[in-house]
């Protein structure tokens, strides 16, 4: 090395010795898990997980399975982007699944079409004035729901100093109650064509990828991102540095709430209906994706890229179990074990990190 300019005080620094980024480890885990399903598939049921093995079709990969996996994780993945930011600041958000339910109900109420097969909409929530509204109306109303829920979460956490676990647990219960109250438990259906179009085909994946890229850039290159990591790393020091930690936390929970409401719009559009128990357990799936992706529950560490790979791992595992024709009951049990395992791994990683200093 001719140019040892990196180090300070005469120390030479060899960039090749730099520790592997966390995301690379997660990606390696992803590859190993995919390979494991590929091998198990060939051994147990004699089918390929990844590659196209059906007769009469062309193409190297089993694109049908792969697109289903990606489509499955896209909705919860959108939530996980927000949950990641909350966890990086050292918080937790248990309310996202319920926000999905509440937002889906409200947004769908403003997305209904007046005539279904020539008859009046049988599921109409409001009168004629709320029928066939421009697409922007349900979207803005939906975003406002997420904003409001996030604002309440954030304000409670920042200004009453109650633990995020409690504040968002309260929102989880209340928002679900709101979703049931909205139409006294009845599903809301028959949206407009334009609303249906939002979640059709592979569009949820594009929404997920676009939001992931946007927030990756925000977390990496902006003040918001830097301060989020700082708060999760050492809240006291961040406060002492003159940063308005309380206001920042409110913003983080608002963003998480709005991402949950985007997921709600996508999922209700995809299903062409809204039900009060939409998004049940989504919050835990989203947290699992983040934790699998290397986001430390202690705050300060992790990235959106990690969460995206974590979401893919999550999707591959769930889909892989179906592929191996294992019972759905096992999936749930394994899901729980994966979450705990990922946190244990994180603790262990931090201990070994501490020992190196």
């Amino acid at each position: 090395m001719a140019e040892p300019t990196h180090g300070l005080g005469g120390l030479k620094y060899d960039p090749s010795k730099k520790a592997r980024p966390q995301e690379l480890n997660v990606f390696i885990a992803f590859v190993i898990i995919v390979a494991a399903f590929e091998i198990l598939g060939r051994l147990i049921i004699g089918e390929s997980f990844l590659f196209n093995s059906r007769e009469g079709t062309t193409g190297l990969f089993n694109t049908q399975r792969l697109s289903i996996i990606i489509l499955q994780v896209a909705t919860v993945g959108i939530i996980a982007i927000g949950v990641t930011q909350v966890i990086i600041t050292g918080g937790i958000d248990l309310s996202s699944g319920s926000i999905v339910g509440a937002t889906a109900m409200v947004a769908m109420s403003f997305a209904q079409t007046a005539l279904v097969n020539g008859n009046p909409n049988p599921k109409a929530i409001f009168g004629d004035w709320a029928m066939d509204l421009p697409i922007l109306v349900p979207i803005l109303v939906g975003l406002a729901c997420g904003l409001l829920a996030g604002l309440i979460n954030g304000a409670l956490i920042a200004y009453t100093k109650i633990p995020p676990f409690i504040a968002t647990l309260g929102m989880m219960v209340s928002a679900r109650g709101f979703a049931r109250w909205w139409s006294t438990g009845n599903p809301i259906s028959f949206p407009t064509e334009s609303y249906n179009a939002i979640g059709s085909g592979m569009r949820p994946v594009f929404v997920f990828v676009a939001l992931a890229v946007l927030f990756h850039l925000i977390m990496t290159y902006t003040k918001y991102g830097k301060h989020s990591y700082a708060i999760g790393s050492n809240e006291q020091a961040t406060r002492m540095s003159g940063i308005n930690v309380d206001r920042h936390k409110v913003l983080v929970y608002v963003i998480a709430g709005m991402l949950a409401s985007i997921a709600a719009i996508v999922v209700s559009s995809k299903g062409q209906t809204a039900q009060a128990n939409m998004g049940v357990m989504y919050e835990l799936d989203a947290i699992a994706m983040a934790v699998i992706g290397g986001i430390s529950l202690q705050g300060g560490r992790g990235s959106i890229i990690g969460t995206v790979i974590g979401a893919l791992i999550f999707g591959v595992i769930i889909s892989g179990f179906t592929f191996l024709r294992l019972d759905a009951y096992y999936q749930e049990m394994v899901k729980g074990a994966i979450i705990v395992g990922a946190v244990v791994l994180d603790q262990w990683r931090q201990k070994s990190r501490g020992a190196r200093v």
Partner: protein
Amino acid sequence: MSEFILETRGLTKRYGGVHALEDANFNLRHGEHVAVVGDNGAGKSTFVRQITAVEQRSAGDVIFDGAPVHFAGPLQARESGIETVFQTLALADDLDVPSNLFLGRELFKLKLGPFSILDRKAMREKTMEALKTTAVKIPNVDNPIRNMSGGQRQCVSIARTAAFASKLVIMDEPTAALGVQETAQVENIIRGLKERGVPLILVSHNLRQVFDLVDRIVVFRRGRIVASLRRDETDGNDIVSYITGVKGGVEV
């Protein structure tokens, strides 16, 4: 402009019935470096905590930069130009060196409210400049602080203070936990402050260090200031006599 950057008059702090600090009259000239010495429990740290508003004083006045002040907390003191290096480090472990140095006063390429885009290159360059003057050895400033030694971390913490020092720097036992080489680095930073004319209050147990660095030594004993001596008019034995109470009672 007042002759002094900082003055305290009758500064007193009581914890219940305990008089931790009694009637402290202290002053610091522009550009002056003063050491605060004394035995454990003599009131040194209490004195510093009243000035930086980590605690609220029981009685007395603090006059900073020509005006009486009553800071609500350390943040306000800092915003007014008093930079403090606390005994406990105030760094964000998961951030790299430039991010820590510029935490709360980032440089931006583009202002967009909370989503303002950071000027990482400029912050990194300024960090390298600030750290070069300290001779601290850090293999890669882009690594998180977590992986650094106590000395390196303390140097970052102090470099941060020194880089932004506006009106007054206070250091409370900055080298207490450091090795010989790291202590030397911190002392270099302090000399740099002197050259730049930034006034300093240095709380220290290390008399060698005190005699090497400061213009004047203020001795605390049992919550009172018992001596204020110019460095060239005193020596180690003299200071120790004041600290232990062999000499004393000189009201300053």
